[in-house]
């Protein structure tokens, strides 16, 4: 299949070799015009153009990876759950948390607990969201000590019992940093060295809908 076929010199053959890129609209103007001029007078090439379009569509569809698509969707849901508002534990004057949009859209946030974290840059699904820098520390009044940095997010099944949730967290030495959010997500801290194992263990738990890492680093 590696012998090079001669393409020059024969207009019909040249057009045949260009049809795939004519279909995808990536030929330059001169080439496209030459293809069209030949198509006008060649039945065979016109018929091939139709089947070429069909083949191109089918190949493009077959190349769409359903597993990758689903993985992207899971990450997106995790990102949205993370950004959803948390009920504020103290109703007295919480300084609003400022942040840039996650995943390129505006999402409201009333995350009082996370606001106490000095700074955290999140990368969820490969998209970075910048959190307030250390200079901009936000406190609730009567500021409590900042909790440990969140590095994982988990969503339990709606019917999971408190006991099951507690057992899952204890088993994986996970501590609660925040949650539940409006999407019933909990933000956790787990030992960074054992995070992969903890997430795998959580995912295997029948009460867990989703467990994803949150990769963070302090932004200047």
């Amino acid at each position, binding site marked *: *299949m590696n*012998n*090079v*076929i001669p*393409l020059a010199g024969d207009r019909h053959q040249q057009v*045949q*070799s*260009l049809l*795939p*890129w004519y279909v*995808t*609209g*990536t*030929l330059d103007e001169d080439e496209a015009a030459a293809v069209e001029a030949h198509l006008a007078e060649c039945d065979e090439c016109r018929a091939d153009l*139709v*089947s*070429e379009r*069909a*083949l*191109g*569509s*089918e*190949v*493009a*569809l*077959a*190349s*769409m990876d*359903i597993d990758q*698509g*689903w993985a*992207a*969707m*899971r990450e*997106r*849901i995790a990102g*949205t759950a993370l950004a959803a508002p948390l009920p504020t534990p103290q109703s007295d004057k919480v300084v609003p948390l400022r942040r840039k949009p996650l995943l390129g859209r505006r999402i409201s946030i009333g995350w009082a607990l996370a606001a106490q974290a000095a700074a955290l840059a999140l990368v969820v699904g490969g998209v970075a969201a910048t959190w307030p820098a250390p200079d901009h520390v936000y406190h609730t009044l009567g500021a409590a000590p900042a909790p440990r940095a969140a590095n994982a997010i988990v*969503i339990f*099944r*709606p019917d999971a019992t408190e006991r099951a949730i507690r057992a899952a967290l204890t088993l994986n030495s996970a501590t609660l940093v925040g949650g539940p959010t409006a*999407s*019933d997500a909990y933000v956790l801290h787990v030992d960074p060295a054992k995070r992969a194992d903890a997430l795998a263990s959580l995912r295997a738990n029948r009460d867990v*809908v*989703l467990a994803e890492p949150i990769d963070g680093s302090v932004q200047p």
Partner: protein
Amino acid sequence: MATEQRTTSGQRRDDEDMRLIARIRAKDMAAFETLYRSYHVRLGRFLLRLVNRPTLVEEVLNDTLMVVWEKAESFNGASKLSTWIFAIAYRKAMKALRKQDDPIDDDTIEERVCLDPSPEDDVSHHRRRALLLEAMTALSPEHRAVINLTYFHEMGYREIAGIMDCPVDTVKTRMFHARRHLKRRMAGELPDWL
């Protein structure tokens, strides 16, 4: 008889859809994954014909199904679930096209839109995709790369030659052989595509 079978299996799928959306309302991720996988091919085919760009299809497809996850409670059962989802996909696709400032031909869209493909269509789509994937697997990595870069990533042959570090004629030759191979392997299926 064929109509009866279609009705029965279509009804079964509608019932299954209703069960899934009820669980999705309760934020059941497993149900959502089942729905996602069952709609991926159907929506992909529909969207590809609307937006014509495979990479954009992936984006719009996930935008659509994200709405299903987030707004499942707004599906009131007045229509079939598939109609509701395809209508969301249609709106998302139009929005994406407007953003791209890409002219679209409304007359042809009406012809192309098939909101409710029959179960038989689904089966044949899946069979064709399986056959095609098998045929693509049989290609050498170089031929497969040319096919993939051309049709999925929609790159011109010069750009592909740059990526693969080979002469443009080699790209054309690989494409020629790869197409011939795929068309031969898919010979019995090709008429159905047209």
